[in-house]
């Protein structure tokens, strides 16, 4: 746990309490059964809005709290622990793009609405099933944006899109020229293919901004992954202490103890790199690209391990849909894939380090 100031500690404790009491995994299970068109529970999102969470990375002048990315990470970690479905990560990344690249008019138009939770925004970058910011065909001609984006998170509900094009980052708002096709994925969250056909667009910045925004979106995802890994591990640890086989608690079997100890070791390293990336963003460090690739690679590998071991160490019950382990496993792979998997970020890290 990073060293927090008082307001960060309060924020974390508030969200943790809300998550455990109002949004446990059973809330996600209900949402899955209800299958709302948005891909999340609108009432829960409204509550997050009342708590001011959509404004964490938005300046106070635009209705936010400007707590920054470490604070956003604390929130996403707590939500991730119980798999809360919310558009907070996507909306915050899009807000950051508007903040960093938007004109004063654009900021004034959109940031307050985002901060209040009234508008859901998202980032639309990849055009295929694998993250590859170098492979973008979407283009803008005379202020009209055309192209198809695959697997856009929160694409079902977003009314503001921050879109990567051959010419940098653009903002598309409203429904004109926008077609959504939902993609039902294993994690039961919102993903959609979004097609832009001469949609009116306003420029936010060039390819440098695209990269900056993707790095921030990636760090946010890492925070959600940290919470998931933490809780998947804790749930498994509790289960081993409850379950009796051959007359012994599973937690007394040394082979399992050492596996858990090794997983705990990886989790501590994961926490360090994820918090390190969030802090690097807040500090505006020049090597934050490396910090983010380090975080995403380690977070992906660790969550992969923990989600696999959660199933294996639970045995048969972990394979059942009535139990929560499958939710962690499915969401884990989606987040591992999002914004580049461990392999992508290892390659990027090597190149950034010149070898």
């Amino acid at each position, binding site marked *: 746990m990073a060293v927090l100031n008082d307001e960060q500690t309060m924020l974390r404790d508030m969200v943790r309490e809300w998550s455990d009491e109002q949004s446990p995994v059973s809330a996600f299970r209900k949402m899955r059964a209800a299958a709302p068109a948005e891909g999340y529970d609108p009432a829960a999102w409204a509550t997050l809005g009342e708590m001011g969470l959509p404004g964490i990375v938005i300046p106070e002048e635009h209705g936010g709290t400007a707590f920054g990315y470490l604070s956003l990470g604390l929130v996403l970690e707590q939500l991730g622990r119980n798999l809360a479905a919310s558009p907070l990560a996507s909306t915050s990344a899009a807000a950051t793009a508007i903040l960093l690249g938007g004109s004063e008019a654009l900021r004034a138009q959109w940031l307050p609405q985002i901060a209040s939770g009234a508008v859901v925004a998202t980032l639309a970058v990849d055009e*295929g*099933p*694998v*993250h590859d910011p170098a492979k973008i065909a979407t283009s803008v001609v005379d202020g009209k944006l055309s192209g198809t984006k*695959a*697997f856009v998170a929160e694409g079902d509900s977003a009314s503001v899109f921050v879109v990567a094009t051959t010419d940098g980052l653009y903002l598309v708002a409203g429904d004109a020229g926008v077609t959504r*096709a*939902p*993609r*039902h*994925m*294993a*994690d*039961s969250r919102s*993903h959609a*293919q979004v097609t832009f056909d001469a949609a009116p667009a306003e420029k936010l910045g060039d390819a440098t901004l695209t990269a900056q925004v993707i790095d921030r979106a990636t760090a946010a995802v890492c925070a959600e992954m940290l919470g998931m890994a933490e809780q998947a591990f804790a749930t498994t640890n509790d289960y081993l202490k409850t*379950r*009796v*086989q*051959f007359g012994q608690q599973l937690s007394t079997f040394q*082979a*399992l103890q050492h596996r858990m100890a090794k997983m705990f070791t990886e989790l501590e390293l994961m926490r360090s790199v994820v918090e390190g990336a969030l802090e690097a963003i807040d500090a505006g460090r020049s090597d934050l690209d490396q910090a983010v690739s380090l975080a995403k690679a380690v977070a992906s590998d660790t969550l992969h391990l923990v989600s*696999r071991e959660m*199933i*294996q160490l639970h*045995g*048969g019950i*972990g*394979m*059942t*849909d*009535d139990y929560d*382990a*499958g939710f962690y*496993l*499915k969401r884990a*792979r*989606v987040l591992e*894939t*999002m914004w580049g*998997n*461990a*392999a*992508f970020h*290892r*390659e990027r890290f090597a190149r950034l380090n010149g070898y």
Partner: protein
Amino acid sequence: MATAPELDAPAAPLDAFRGEVRAWLAANFPASLKGKDNALSALEGPTELSPDQSAWQAAMGEKGWGVPSWPAAYGGGGLDKAQIRVLNEEMARAGAWNPIGGMGVMMFGPTLLEYGSEAQKHEHIPAIAKGQVRWCQGYSEPNAGSDLANVQTFAQDAGDHYIVNGQKTWTSGGQWADKCFALVRTDKSQKHGGISFLLLDMTAPGVEVRPIAMISGQSPFCETFFTDVKVPKGNLVGREGQGWEIGTRLLQHERNSLSGGGGASRLFAGKPMGKLAKEYRGEDEQGRVPDTDLRMRIVRHEMDSRAFALTLRRAALEAKSNQGPSAATSIMKNVGARITQDRAELSIEIMGMAGLGWEGEGFSEDELTQTRTWLWGKAVSIYGGSTEIQNNVISKRILGMLDHQ
């Protein structure tokens, strides 16, 4: 100069049999079914058979070739190993597959042939051979986990019959099964020695099944409840108290079918990972998979698969020679599970978001199948003796290590 024995040596004297098989397949295997076997179908439950499927099942059932090694006297094929190899080769050549399967064939039939009475064999084996009766396994109980001998389901002696009460879980195909072979307790005073092997009718009064939904979206298993179920004593296989011996023998058949080919090799089916990767990721200027990290993990997996295939071959050769059972057999379950799971994880990684589809538009049928295969595959290191149990077995039985005192 010494040469290694050939597993696939040509078998010239079998030419006549080969001709017979080929002709029979040409006459009986419907061309419409060519290559239409589906590895996941067992998880989805029985579907309505098409007329061609029904005809094919009836033909194979009549011929006994669905269970080619079983005695002809009980409806089996009565073939020897060499003939079975020819049959398999010709089936593969014709794109034909075996429509007779399930637990009756893989596990229960071989065990009943070994331990059953004449009456029991005549009653049950022909129906299995024809694919007319589905069997399920009543072993696992809630809270017992890997401790299979922790049987609580009790069969009370009531003269010419037993009254069975208790609960089983992980009953594979319980909702579709006609009958069940179960471990029940007939004696509470001893753990292993109090277990008996009993055959139950799933349609009998007092039997209730509830399907269990799995993370892969399928429900191939049930919870099964027995409440005052009346079972004739003629349904006891072997002696009272012999159930642990018979039950573990049956598990050997299960393991052989899981590791030797059957389940595991079906899951291996599909294209090489390198090929799949090129389809989804393209190739670099040197013709390589462009993601170097992924590529090196594909190599490791493909090497692991080949090493496993060579080990299966080696164990088969050793079993044929006079060297006795191969120690390599003990690793089959774990390595098979590892390769199955690594393959699935690599596949969905290669496909990216497309490998994580659940249903609906935007995914190919292969992609949606891959998601389910990946999730279901997590079971292979849990069921049929978990990886942890196998490691216990290796360390105790092969390496001679003792329990903590």
